[in-house]
C-alpha cells in the first residue's frame, strides 16, 4: 500500500471508531442513569442493566483507544501523543482535540475508580462519578468539531438522537433528585401514606418542604 492509501485507511478507521465510541458512550450514560433510577430493560433481569453499563464502558474505552492510536499513526496530520491526555496540548485543532482529551481523561478516571470502588469511600466515588456528565458533552463537542462527519446525513440524525436521549434521561434523573424524600423525612412520609389519622398533624409541621397535597410513591422513598 502506498502512503496516501495507508493514511486514508487510518483516517477512516479513526473516524469510524470515533463514531462508534460516541454511540457506546451515549449508551453507557443512558444505562448509568437507568441503574441509578433502579430502572430495567424490559424483559431482562436487573443485573443486565449494571452489567451492560460496565461492559459497554470497557468496550467504549477499547474503541476510543483504537480511535486515538489510528489518529496519531495517521501521517497526514501530526498529533503529539501528549495531546491525547493533556487537553489543548495539540498544535493541530487544539480546542477540538482538547475536548477529546478531557473527555478521555475523565472516562479513564471513572473506569479506574469504578474498578477500585470497594477500596475507596463511597462518597468520593459518587462525587467523581458525577463527572460523567462533563465527559459526555465534551465527547460530543469533540466529535462535532473535529470532523464534518456528524454534520450531514445519517450521522447527523444519529448525533441528534444521542443528544435528545441523554437530555431526556438527564431531565428524568434530575427530576427525581428534586422529588426525592430526604432520609430524615422518610419515616414520617411512610406514616402519612399508611393512614390519614397516623400522619403527623399540622401543628407538627414546621416549614417542611413537602406540600401535604403531594402523594409520595414508594419510588420517592428509596
Amino acid at each position: 500500500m502506498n502512503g496516501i492509501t495507508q493514511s486514508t485507511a487510518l483516517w477512516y478507521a479513526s473516524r469510524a471508531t470515533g463514531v462508534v465510541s460516541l454511540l457506546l458512550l451515549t449508551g453507557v450514560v443512558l444505562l448509568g442513569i437507568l441503574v441509578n433510577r433502579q430502572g430495567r430493560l424490559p424483559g431482562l433481569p436487573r443485573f443486565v442493566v449494571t452489567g451492560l453499563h460496565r461492559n459497554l464502558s470497557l468496550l467504549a474505552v477499547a474503541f476510543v483507544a483504537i480511535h486515538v492510536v489510528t489518529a496519531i499513526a495517521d501521517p497526514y496530520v501530526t498529533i503529539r501523543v501528549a495531546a491525547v491526555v493533556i487537553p489543548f496540548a495539540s498544535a493541530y485543532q487544539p480546542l477540538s482535540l482538547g475536548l477529546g482529551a478531557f473527555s478521555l481523561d475523565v472516562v479513564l478516571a471513572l473506569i479506574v475508580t469504578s474498578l477500585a470502588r470497594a477500596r475507596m469511600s463511597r462518597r468520593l466515588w459518587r462525587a467523581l462519578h458525577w463527572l460523567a456528565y462533563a465527559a459526555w458533552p465534551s465527547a460530543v463537542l469533540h466529535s462535532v468539531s473535529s470532523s464534518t462527519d456528524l454534520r450531514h446525513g445519517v450521522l447527523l440524525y444519529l448525533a441528534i438522537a444521542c443528544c435528545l436521549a441523554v437530555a431526556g434521561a438527564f431531565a428524568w434523573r434530575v427530576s427525581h433528585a428534586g422529588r426525592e424524600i430526604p432520609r430524615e423525612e422518610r419515616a414520617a412520609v411512610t406514616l402519612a401514606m399508611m393512614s390519614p389519622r397516623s400522619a403527623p398533624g399540622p401543628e407538627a409541621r414546621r416549614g417542611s418542604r413537602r406540600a401535604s397535597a403531594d402523594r409520595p410513591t414508594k419510588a420517592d422513598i428509596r
Partner: protein
Amino acid sequence: MTYGTTVPYPAQHPAQHPARRLTQPADSRPRDRDTELPRLLPAHGAVPVDLRTHMSRYGAPPYFGQPGRLIPVLKAAQLTGRGGAAFPVHRKLTAVAEAATRPVVIGNGAEGEPASDKDKSLLWISPHLVLDGLQLAAEAVGSNAVGLYVHRNARLQERLRAAVAERAGARIDLAPVEIIDAPPRFLAGEESALASRVSGEPAMPRFKPPRVFERGVVGRPTLVHNVETLAHMALIARYGPHWFRAVGTADEPGSMLCTLHQADGGRDVAETGLGTPLRNLLTLDEGTQAVLSGGYHGAWLAAADAARLTLSNAHLKPAGAFVGAGVLVAFPANRCGIAETARVARYLALESAGQCGPCFNGLPRIAAALDEVASPQPDPRAVADMMRWAGLVEGRGACHHPDGTVRFVRSALHVFREEIRLHQYGRCMDPARRPFLPLPADTALDAADWS
C-alpha cells in the same frame, strides 16, 4: 427543645424502702458505710454539688500514674455499663487501650429516652463525679482527646462548661474536656450515632463493623461510656471493688440510678442496689395494671408478675424484659395500654433515622397497625400484619432501633391482650385515650433536627 426540667419532679408517696430518692431526706437510721445509699446522689436534697464540696468529700481524682492500672480494679468490681446495654466496662477499656492509636474518650450524657431523667439529674447534681470518671477513663486508655456529649439544654451545658473550666483552673484534670451538643433525638445517644455527631456529621447510627472502639470519632478508636458509669468509676477508683460490690447481687453488683414513674403521676430519680424488688420501687397495688421496664425499647410486664420480680437481669430477662437504663413505669389500671403503646410506637417510628429500608418502612406500618388496634372495631388483619412486619424488621437495621421497638410492641400485645379483646367488641378501658407515658411535644422533620 427539652424533655422537661433537669431536676426531677417531686414524688408524692411515702418512703418505705432503702432506695434513696432525690426528693426525700436521707434515712436517719445508722447504716453500714459500705452499703449506705446514696452513692452518686447527695445525701440530702437535690442541690448541685460544687467543686469545693466535691473535693472536700472525695478529694482529687485518684490517678494511677500510668495507663491501664484502673482496668483490673473495674474488672474486680464487675462494673457494667449503665447506659442500657450492661456491657462489662473493663472489656471496653481494654479494647480501646489495646488499639493504642490516639484514642478518644466520650462521656455519653445524651439521654434520648423520654422516660429517663437519671443522666440529666446526675449531670446537674453531681457533675464532678462524672468528670472525675471521664479523666480516670482517659488516663486508663492513654487518651487526651476527651469530650462530654450532652443533650441540648443551654443551662446544663453552661453549668458543665463552668465546671470544666473550674477544674482546669484548679489543675485537677489531665486532659481538657470539650462539651459537645447532641440533637434531641431518641437515637442520638446510640454509640455510633454519637461517634458520627462528634465527628461533625448528623447523629445517625452507622453500620457495624467497625465498632466505635475500633473506628469511631474521625476514625479513631473511641471509648464511649454513659455518664452514670463514669460516676461509678470515679467512686470505685477511690473506694475499691469490694466497696462497690457491698450492694447489689453477686452477679449484678453495685447500685444504679432509676427513673420511677408512679401510677399517680409521680416521677422521680432514685438510686438503688441492683436486685431491689420492683414492688419496693413502684407502688404496685390494684391501681396499677402493668409495669414497663427498660424504657421504650424495653418490655411490658403484668403488674402481678412485676410484683414478684427484682431489678436484675437475672429476673427480668427470663420475663422478656431487662434492666436497661433503669426506667420503670407503673401503668395505671384505668388507661388503655394499647393506645399508649400505639402513641409511643408512632414516636419511635418518627425517630427512625430513615437510613435503613426495613426500619423506615416497617416501623411506621407497625405504628399505624397499632393505632388501628387501639381504635374501636379494628380491622381484624391488623395484629397479623403487625406480627409479620415485626418479624421483617428485627435485626435488619444498622442499629437496634427496630429490635427494641419490636420488643416493646410484642410485649404490649401479650400483656394487654385482654384490652385487645375488649376493642374487638367495641369496648375500651379508656375510650378517651388519655396520655400517660411521657413523649416530647414535637417530632424530627428535617436534616437540621439530626445535627
